[in-house]
């Protein structure tokens, strides 16, 4: 049985990007140009996902392996929606919620860890400096990772 959460609407309303979900009138304009709807084998559909948020299907949407992770972040739905729902932002807001529960994909978590600890998405090696010098570029300066660490939370460290 699908579990319905009656306060999911409120939670989305207070999560950045989720605020507009209840303005959806189910027109389906977001579906036609959605590449994930075209390529999904599981029936990914931004209109249905927004409907599920309105109904309160929190557990289905936030569980591990949720279909929301099939979104490509292409922003076509953002362009098309006449109600300014921004389905991709609603999806991203739910991804933020999933991150809090740690039901988001492992790959996402490890990429975020890299940014938090190294200040970038890729790792510096000696080869990078050599390549840069070969191209006539300066070697890279140290990244102020301590600033990033400081900004991760509201709390004083």
């Amino acid at each position, binding site marked *: 049985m699908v579990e319905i959460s009656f306060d999911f609407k409120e939670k989305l309303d207070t999560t950045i990007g989720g605020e507009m979900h209840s303005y959806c009138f189910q027109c389906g304009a977001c579906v036609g140009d959605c590449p994930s709807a075209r390529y999904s084998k599981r029936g990914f559909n931004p209109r249905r996902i927004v409907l599920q948020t309105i109904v309160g299907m929190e557990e289905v949407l936030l569980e591990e392996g949720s279909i929301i992770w*099939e979104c490509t*972040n292409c922003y076509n739905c953002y362009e098309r929606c006449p109600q300014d729902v*921004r389905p991709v932002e609603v999806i991203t807001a739910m991804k933020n919620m999933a991150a809090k529960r740690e039901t988001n994909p492992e790959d996402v978590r490890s990429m975020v860890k890299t940014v938090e600890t190294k200040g970038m998405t890729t790792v510096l090696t000696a080869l990078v400096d050599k390549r840069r010098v070969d191209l006539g570029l300066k070697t890279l300066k140290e990244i102020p990772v301590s600033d990033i660490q400081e900004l991760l939370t509201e709390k004083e460290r």
Partner: protein
Amino acid sequence: MSEEKKYVPFFGCMISVKYPQFEAAVRKTMSKVGMTLVDLDGFTCCPDPIYFKSSDKLTWLTIAARNLCIAEEAGLDITTMCSGCTATLSETRYHLAHDEALKKRVNQRLKKIGKEYKGTVSVRHIVTVLRDDIGIDKVVASVVKPLNGLRVAVHYGCHLLKPSKIMQVDDPDRPTILERLLEAIGAEPVQHDANLLCCGKACMEPDMPAQMTFDILTSIKRTDVDCMGLICPTCFDAYDLGQIKISRQFKTKFDIPIIYYFQLLGLAQGLSPEDVGLNMHKIMPEPLLAKVA
């Protein structure tokens, strides 16, 4: 002498670490069109608009705002070379300009490192700066070896154009900016069926992006072009290194060289293939180089 325009370049980590040949191409070509790049210290990852944004949007906005602060302190506008950095910094700028409460929350955190975001500098992808500030005529004037007859499949990628309300670059359904820049260097932009299809890289289900990449490469292959031209290192990743994986997976050979616009501009300005690091690509552009030599 005409007035030189100054910008702070934000190369981001993908370009400066993974694809420094793009940085070299930008630096070597921009000096010839009258754009002065003023390097500033202290930038971090933008941070990335897919993984980081999907984990904690408030922290994403805060770290991005910190990067914007660095340019604000110098009083200079930012120009970006990666669609991902463009998305993060432009979206941050937009949201903080339209949501006073959000800006306050971000500034509360920034205070911990002694910074305050005010919203005084703009963020523009470098192709937009070329079109709007420098002028395409300056690009034309910098060409010494026009790439006549070179057929280039245009690939826009998603985040340069969308959300169009925020990015303010071009009509996302009928963009022309890259076509105009290619024509400026004598090349022929070529449309193909999957022109505006997403590379799919952000999708966490592996088969879907593979199929999308395969469809785009197949669509390009049908048009008989010399290369794919693009402006984003993430798209480059999907089609250069990615092309090898996709060729193996789908047992199809494509041999489509993938080239960053500023590398093509460099060739047209008389730079050597090594100057712009074309020798660092996985799909080697030899037939193309023979054609433009």
